[in-house]
């Protein structure tokens, strides 16, 4: 069911001459906006001074309470992606992008009201719930469209979009700081105005993406591309229905593969600044630690494109083998870099780890496509995103609690992360085994009739001519 006819899938079928290279920027319009979530922490400190202005007043919000905004958003991201995945897939990308933009912007507007009336529950509702739905819809909306436009390079195509999610913080962070400075006065912190401005900017940007996006006509393939004739065991030519896919062991093995890869990375990402300063006391200043966090984010972004593109050549399973084998070795090396006091080696270990953390996110849509076909890949991806939500809880809890336990047990701060690193390495070994167990999906799960082709033919008849290159 379409919200507006113009948003409907049939109205987004590409006309002859449409370049498929228009689709990645459309996807980036969405991901560069919703990835702002990674930069939300820039609002945390200002939001603890909304009443006190220069310092926190007793009635001001606490950092621990503000931390829930991001957690709720990530939780809702996972659940909404799972719940609305099928709607996104069947309704088409434009409708989903449009709704994603609307929810994301409304989330900011409601949050601005929450800040203005100083009610944190309204902010939870705004950014956490509405923003979270915008995140979930936006994250999965361009995935299957990109895979259909780039059957020859599905990893690269989805990697490009998901790279945008990793890179969005680079724009959102300075932009948010600038907006807050612009609207702040001696008696007022400009958080609410910054929220409204961001909402408007993101709404325009995301709706431009929705306007640009197109789906290929059924049966379309890139000029000169011939699908591989030789049967590849781990690349199916069949489709699996979304609710059948989640009944397969393959889905849950990939769920654990993603969850474990993300758990290992996300815990470190959250503690990177403190960890670098505590492991190298006197060598890494606060400013240098901030630079380290920026570097990690940069490699998180670049890894998304690099590893997803690489997976087109070496295969998805082998790519994850690289993540888990190399990741295990690097996590085991980190305590050694601390013991010899080598900051460059420490940084090198973590930038590679972070590239694989991002690569895990970006390679997984193509992995799903290989296992379950293209028809419901977006919806299946939506269900898989719950692994991210779970990892978002496990990872930081694991790192924080083990570190605290070590310090309470009398371990010096510089060595308090050693056990954590070995546990992370252990998680990656389990991930390696899960990846090892992934085999082709049993044929009983394959869809029996090709509804897509039938519906596509109807769409072509309605639209006129088939799409061009």
């Amino acid at each position, binding site marked *: 069911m379409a919200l507006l006819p113009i948003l409907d899938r049939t109205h987004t079928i590409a006309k002859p001459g449409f370049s498929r290279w228009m689709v990645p920027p459309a996807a980036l319009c969405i991901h560069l906006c919703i990835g702002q979530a990674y930069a939300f922490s820039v609002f945390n400190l200002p939001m603890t001074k909304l009443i006190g202005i220069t310092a926190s007043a007793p009635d001001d919000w606490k950092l621990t309470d503000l931390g829930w905004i991001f957690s709720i958003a990530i939780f809702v991201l996972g659940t909404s992606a799972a719940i609305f995945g099928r709607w996104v897939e069947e309704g088409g990308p434009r409708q989903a992008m449009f709704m994603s933009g609307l929810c994301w912007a409304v989330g900011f507007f409601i949050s601005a009201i929450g800040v203005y009336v100083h009610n944190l529950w309204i902010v939870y509702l705004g950014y956490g719930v509405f923003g979270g739905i915008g995140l979930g819809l936006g994250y999965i909306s361009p995935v299957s469209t990109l895979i259909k436009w780039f059957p020859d390079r599905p990893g690269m195509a989805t990697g490009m979009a998901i790279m945008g999610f990793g890179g969005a913080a680079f724009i959102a*962070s300075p932009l948010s700081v600038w907006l807050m400075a612009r609207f702040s006065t001696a008696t007022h912190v400009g958080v609410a105005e910054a929220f409204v401005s961001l909402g408007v900017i993101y709404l325009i940007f995301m709706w431009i993406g929705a306007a640009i996006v197109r789906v290929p006509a059924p049966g379309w393939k890139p000029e000169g591309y011939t699908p591989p004739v030789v049967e590849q065991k781990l690349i199916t030519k069949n489709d699996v229905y979304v609710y059948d896919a989640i009944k397969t062991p393959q889905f849950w093995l990939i769920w654990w593969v993603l969850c474990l890869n993300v758990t290992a990375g996300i815990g470190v990402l959250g503690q990177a600044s403190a960890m670098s300063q505590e492991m190298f006391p006197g060598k890494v200043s606060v400013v240098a630690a901030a630079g380290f966090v920026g570097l990690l984010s940069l490699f998180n972004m670049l890894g998304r494109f690099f590893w997803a593109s690489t997976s087109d050549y070496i295969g998805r399973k082998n790519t994850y083998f690289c993540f888990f084998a190399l990741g295990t070795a690097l996590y085991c090396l980190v305590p050694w870099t601390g013991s010899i006091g080598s900051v460059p080696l420490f*940084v090198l270990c973590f930038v590679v780890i972070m590239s694989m953390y991002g690569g895990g996110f970006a390679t997984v849509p193509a992995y799903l496509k290989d296992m379950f076909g293209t028809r419901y890949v977006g919806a299946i991806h939506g269900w898989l995103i719950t692994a991210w939500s779970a990892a978002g809880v496990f990872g930081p809890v694991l790192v924080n609690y083990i570190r605290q336990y070590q310090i309470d047990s009398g371990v010096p701060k510089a060595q308090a992360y050693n056990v954590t690193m070995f546990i992370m390495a252990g998680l990656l070994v389990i991930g390696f085994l899960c990846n090892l167990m992934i085999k082709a999906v049993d044929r009983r799960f394959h869809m029996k009739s090709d509804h897509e082709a039938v519906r596509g033919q109807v769409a072509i008849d309605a639209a006129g001519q088939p799409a061009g290159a």
Partner: protein
Amino acid sequence: MANENQNSSNLMPLILAWGLVGIPLAWGVIQTIQNAMKLFQ
């Protein structure tokens, strides 16, 4: 001639679309690299 016109008319939306996403992203990346350099100073 007609083909050339079609190519250039296809190229302009591509440049605009990639510019729209590429310029802000490049700006953000440069800012981040400048900050990251402090780690090695």
